[in-house]
């Protein structure tokens, strides 16, 4: 009877114990997982809006007919939900569209005075989720990005701890690997150093005002989060860090760089090293020249062409090719996740991955009818393979739905009214 106390049985034990007397009800015990696989939440960002004409499928439902761009989803079509008709803060248009399409992407924060730049920033949905589930993993959240150009912080961050306080992001593959899998520096001195500098920060915070105080409080929080990581790692030793071949430094080839970062992200999700991640495939406004696919012009310049003009019509096709190149990076990642068995399904079944841009058309700087995809099974809460057309629901409603999926008991965020319906 002893073996029955174990929740899951190996087939061999069972066969040896029960012999040919095996009856059907036993099989259920055998296949029941010890606990449900954790839900992972990922947010992938592309800059500059899209060629919207080629993005939105003409028809709705499971047999939707994709335009040129989303035809690239074919290999993973059953895992992806195409969402259209969703607006971010309908009716609010800022003068400078590109920061507006980036900084509040995951918070839908209104223009406010909490952020000195006058842009809208507040804690983002990924960080709200990390606050909920992050304590259970080595890394509460992982922020990645491909473009390391020095630019305005409102165009280079989608993940925020709070107003005016970005999470920053990593772009060096080796550094990301170390952060995920190497042991955090935790010799005896490190612990007491952190202790001392934390105390200094606390003391100084009382003496400072204005922006200096904000910076010191941020420092204090950073030290606290490192202490929590070290503490977690000391209780959960990583026995076999996964192996992956990585170059020294950052690859100069964009696609190689993007693929490496997605490989690392897949590894992080697979090993349950983190359950929350953001990935900026590029910063706003997206000034890349896509020579890889024969587009010499920069993406931002192309996005600003007026399609009513002769040149504009000519270049719309190039814009579509860029959109597709980004989607293909996403598809490649989904294929990897779908190939990793976990529990009864795959890792992808236990993910909710939002993909999209903060702008609709780069040229218009508008945020109505945003280009959005939602991939993964969401632990049964998302049913892909469909195009759902909404009627102007707030993007924050999708944030709220993803928050609730992840188990956060949050009533509402920003201008949300209810969790977005129709995902399953």
């Amino acid at each position, binding site marked *: 009877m002893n073996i029955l106390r174990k929740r899951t049985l190996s087939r061999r034990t069972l066969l040896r114990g029960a012999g040919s007397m095996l009856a059907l009800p036993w099989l259920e015990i055998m296949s029941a997982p010890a606990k449900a696989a954790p839900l992972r939440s990922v947010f992938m960002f592309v800059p500059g809006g899209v060629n919207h004409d080629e993005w939105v499928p003409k028809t709705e439902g499971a047999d939707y007919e994709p335009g040129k761009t989303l035809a690239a989803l074919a290999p993973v079509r059953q895992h992806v939900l195409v969402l259209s008709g969703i607006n971010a803060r309908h009716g609010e248009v800022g003068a400078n569209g590109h920061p507006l399409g980036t900084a509040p992407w995951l918070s839908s924060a209104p223009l406010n005075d909490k952020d000195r730049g006058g842009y809208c920033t507040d804690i983002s949905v990924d960080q709200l989720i990390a606050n909920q589930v992050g304590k259970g993993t080595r890394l509460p959240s992982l922020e990645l990005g491909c473009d390391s150009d*020095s630019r305005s912080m409102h165009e280079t961050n989608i993940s925020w701890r709070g107003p005016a306080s970005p999470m920053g992001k990593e772009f060096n593959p080796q550094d990301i690997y170390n952060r995920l899998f190497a042991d955090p520096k935790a010799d005896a001195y490190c612990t007491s150093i952190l202790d001392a500098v934390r105390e200094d920060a606390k003391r100084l915070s009382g003496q400072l005002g204005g922006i200096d105080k904000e910076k010191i409080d941020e420092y204090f929080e950073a030290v606290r989060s490192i202490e929590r990581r070290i503490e977690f790692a000391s209780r959960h030793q990583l026995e076999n860090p996964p192996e992956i071949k990585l170059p020294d430094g950052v690859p100069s080839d964009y696609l190689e760089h993007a693929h490496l970062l997605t490989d690392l992200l897949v590894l992080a999700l697979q090993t349950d090293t983190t359950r929350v991640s953001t990935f900026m495939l590029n910063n706003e406004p997206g000034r890349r020249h896509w020579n890889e696919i024969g587009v010499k012009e920069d993406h931002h310049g192309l996005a600003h062409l007026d399609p009513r003009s002769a*040149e504009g019509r000519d270049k719309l096709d190039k814009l579509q090719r860029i959109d597709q190149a980004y989607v293909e990076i996403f598809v490649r990642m989904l294929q990897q996740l779908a190939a990793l068995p976990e529990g009864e399904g795959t890792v992808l079944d236990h993910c909710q991955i939002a993909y999209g841009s903060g702008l609709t058309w780069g040229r218009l700087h508008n945020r109505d009818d945003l280009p959005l995809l939602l991939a993964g099974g969401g632990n049964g809460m998302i049913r892909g393979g469909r195009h759902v057309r909404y009627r102007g629901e707030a993007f924050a409603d999708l944030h709220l739905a993803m928050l609730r999926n992840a188990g956060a008991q949050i009533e509402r965020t920003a201008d949300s009214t209810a969790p977005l319906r129709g995902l399953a």
Partner: protein
Amino acid sequence: MPEMVRFVLHRQFQEPLVHLPPDPAAHGFDSMAESLNLPPFLMEKYLDAAEKLTAREDVWQAFIKRARPRQQQTGDPAETDRGIIADVLKRAFRRPPEEGEVTRYTGFYDLAIKNGEDRERAMAVALRAILVAPQFLFRLESGVASEEKGGVRPLTDHELAARLSYFLWDTIPDPELSRAADEGALRDPEVLAAQARRMLRHPRAEEFIRDFSLQWLRIQNISSHAPDPSVLGAFNNRLKNFNEALASEVLLLFATVMAEDRSVLDLVDPDFTWVNLTLCNVYGIENRPYTGVGKPGSAEWLRYPITDRRRGGIITAGATLMVNSNPTHTNPIKRGKWLLEAVLGQEPPPPLPNVPNLEATPVVQGGLPIREKLAQHRTDAACASCHARLDPLGLALENYDAIGVWRDSEGKAEIDASGTLKDGTKFNGPIGLKDLLRGPKRNEFVRCLTEHLFTYALGRPVQHYDIATIHGIVKKAEADDNRFSTLITEIVKSYPFCHLKTKPDTL
């Protein structure tokens, strides 16, 4: 951080110890307080760097060899070591450490000794802590609360020294500046100005030239600018040298104006420029100063007298002309916007949403030359409000192609570089523009430069309450032939530079 480590430890590293991401920028500069954040992953990198640095035996041996003899020897070796740590604290925190701070950080030394480490290792542990302390990583102005009046207080001597040093050297104060602060002399405006003049003459001011001028002129990313091969022509295979040469010309101009304490108007309209072979080719300088010396792309630079004012100065430099072009053709709107922002100090409002953009439009495609196309664009009242200011400025530079090579015509159409400013002032081409900037518009240029310097120096944007100060600085500079050092010393002596607002701005 690498710069600060260099000054604290007197040691420079060829290879980076850790990869730090670039600092985010705001208001055109990456030194703005508001955009310099410290997310957890960055703090981890600092910890990592401090650990790696102090684990390097060679670094420690060299550091201690230098520090020990300078320290007053007492009978107690541990006392000597604590003295060294206190000295490092003073340099690292850019002010005399408080007693509690000395105890806290020398405590690491004592702890390590107790754990059986040798004296060198014990000192390394203390240094490791100092290198990640908030007082080292942040330039805090915590000052003396009792001096506050109406939400403003004067900076302490040490705070002033740090502001000055980061402005002109981008690092912590050197011993001479620290000494002036120790003696309490820096709050005397004349002492402060004398220190500034001394620092401008020091080789470290190169940091300022590079850091400030590349960002002011928005050419810091020039190395990633890749003109189309059809435009680059003969330079196609030497793009890296090409971009570097273009940027160096501007840096050398700035350095010369600074070193010879010339009028800042020479930044726009000098009587000399610096050229190497690449630039001779770009600028079509026939009378090549190089006869049989150097190879194309050679690093050799010569000072070349300007007889033809189509060349020389920031507005007709290849660097700014190229960066404000598209890869395949010129972009008068970009150039106009740049002139307004960087030279005339009139920030144009951003384009209205839903306004068609001409960017990336090949010039003569559709049969219309750019001038007519832009004119057509301005018949729309919504566009005209801004483009009446942008277009005539940018079009005045149409004689320079997308990499700055002079041309008289484009295709079959002869280039018309005449223009009218919004206030009705008429001018013709780049020389006309230079005449304006030397003459009636010179104060606008000096004010624009002052505002950029001010923003860079203070790490915050110019506010409405600074306007009178800036007006005063421009007046003082004008009275002294707009001399470079006068502009700098007037900024340094100004009220906003020497004071701290202790209450945040209300919006």
